[in-house]
């Protein structure tokens, strides 16, 4: 199946925050009242109930003037996602569209995905069951995969009135990004396309006006080495060893039984299958 991607051109964004609200509206997420943080940005970062946040970065440009840099920040839907790698329950998985989603029924709320996400976009939400007992589940942007399945666009893309966001085939979105980059290079010499190779590329492709670090993004995000070692090496070896141990125990038991029988005959085995 064709890979899809969300294209975000931050230079067209006017910071209206409709993407934030439309996300809440579609996904029925509760509001998170927030005190003033000292800038125009409403929330510090994405949370379990706020899947995308519009960041307002106060940046001093090369001429010494203040520049407001806006960025629609949400899950990047990495092609080789750290969260999918570390999830012990296989609750996090890839869809046919290339998006990364959490299966609520499988998630046990262990929080490995939260710790390992290079972009810090996964969070745990706390819920209460009918007996009042608390339990946790990881939550993040789904790229509106339920809408994609019905042939609709993600809610944030639908609402964007400046056309800063688009959703479509990944190749076309990359072409679009390259075309746009050539257009804005004069005005923003540091402009770049953010589609980091360290996570196999992302399904949210950004045209940034400044270096990724200015936007608080890692320059070269990677799946943590510890996660790779753990999942690709330690766990298979562990499973193999568990299997070997189990086989050894069973083998020992059977051989022990046989020898035991041979030694003691029918004396202590009365009432069993021999009769």
């Amino acid at each position, binding site marked *: 199946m064709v890979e899809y991607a969300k294209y975000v051109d931050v230079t067209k964004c006017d910071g209206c925050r409709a993407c934030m*609200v439309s996300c809440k509206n*579609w996904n029925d997420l509760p509001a998170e009242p927030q005190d003033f943080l000292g800038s125009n940005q409403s929330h510090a970062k994405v949370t379990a109930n706020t899947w995308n946040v519009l960041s307002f970065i106060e940046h001093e440009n090369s001429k010494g003037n203040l520049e407001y840099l806006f960025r629609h920040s949400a899950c990047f839907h990495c092609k080789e996602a750290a969260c999918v790698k570390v999830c012990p329950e296989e609750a996090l998985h890839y869809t046919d569209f290339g998006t990364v989603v959490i299966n609520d029924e499988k998630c046990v709320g262990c929080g490995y995905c939260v710790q390992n996400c290079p972009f810090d976009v996964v969070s745990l939400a706390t819920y209460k069951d009918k007996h009042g007992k608390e339990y946790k589940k990881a939550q993040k942007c789904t790229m509106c995969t*339920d809408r994609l399945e019905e042939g609709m666009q993600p809610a944030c893309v639908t609402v964007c009135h400046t056309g800063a966001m688009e959703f479509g085939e990944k190749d076309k979105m990359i072409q679009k990004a390259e075309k746009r980059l050539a257009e804005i290079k004069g005005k923003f010499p540091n402009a770049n396309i953010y589609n980091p190779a360290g996570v196999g590329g992302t399904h949210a492709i950004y045209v940034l006006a400044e270096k990724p670090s200015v936007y608080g993004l890692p320059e070269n995000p990677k799946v943590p080495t510890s996660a790779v070692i753990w999942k690709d090496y330690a766990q298979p070896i562990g499973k193999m060893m568990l299997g070997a141990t189990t086989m050894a125990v069973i083998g020992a038991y059977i051989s022990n039984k046989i020898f035991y029988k041979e030694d003691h005959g029918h004396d202590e085995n009365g009432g069993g299958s021999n009769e």
Partner: protein
Amino acid sequence: MVEINLNRRQFLKLSGATAATLAIVELGFNEKEAYASSKEFKIAKSTVTPTICCYCGVGCGILVHTKDNAVVYTEGDPDHPVNEGKLCSKGTTIRQLYTTEKRLTKPLYRAPGSSKWEEKEWDWMYDRIAKRVKETRDASFVDKEDGIIVNKTERIASLGGAALDNEETYLLSKMMRGLGIVYLEHQARI
């Protein structure tokens, strides 16, 4: 013909086993399908009604999705020439007009000098408004000014809202002008 000899106990056992097998077959073993059917698409069976955003004067088109007499979702109307499916952050929240517990469902009346709001019926309200409009109009009506017929009152003003459509604003301004009101304003200009 095949003759089956069953005693009561065997018959019960057999029918129980058949029922259990059928029940399991009915459920199916396709985990994915079972998961998909447990989560129905949010707006799959909703009724869609177009409306106009009530907030500013731009007049964006909105589609309201309702199900079982509740608003389940709202979004910009892609066929509307004003906004072509887009909406601002405020217009996107319009579902809360209906779902909020702060929503007024009955007219509230505060008597002159009172500090309390009381719930009143619409009929009572209409009568009251009509009476007060007539009183004010009769007391302040000017038929002539500097020898010219003006037939106006300057003690009443009308404030229209952005949610009014073309036909409603026409009727409203026609009624207001009929009463002799000259101060016609619109909420989006203030």
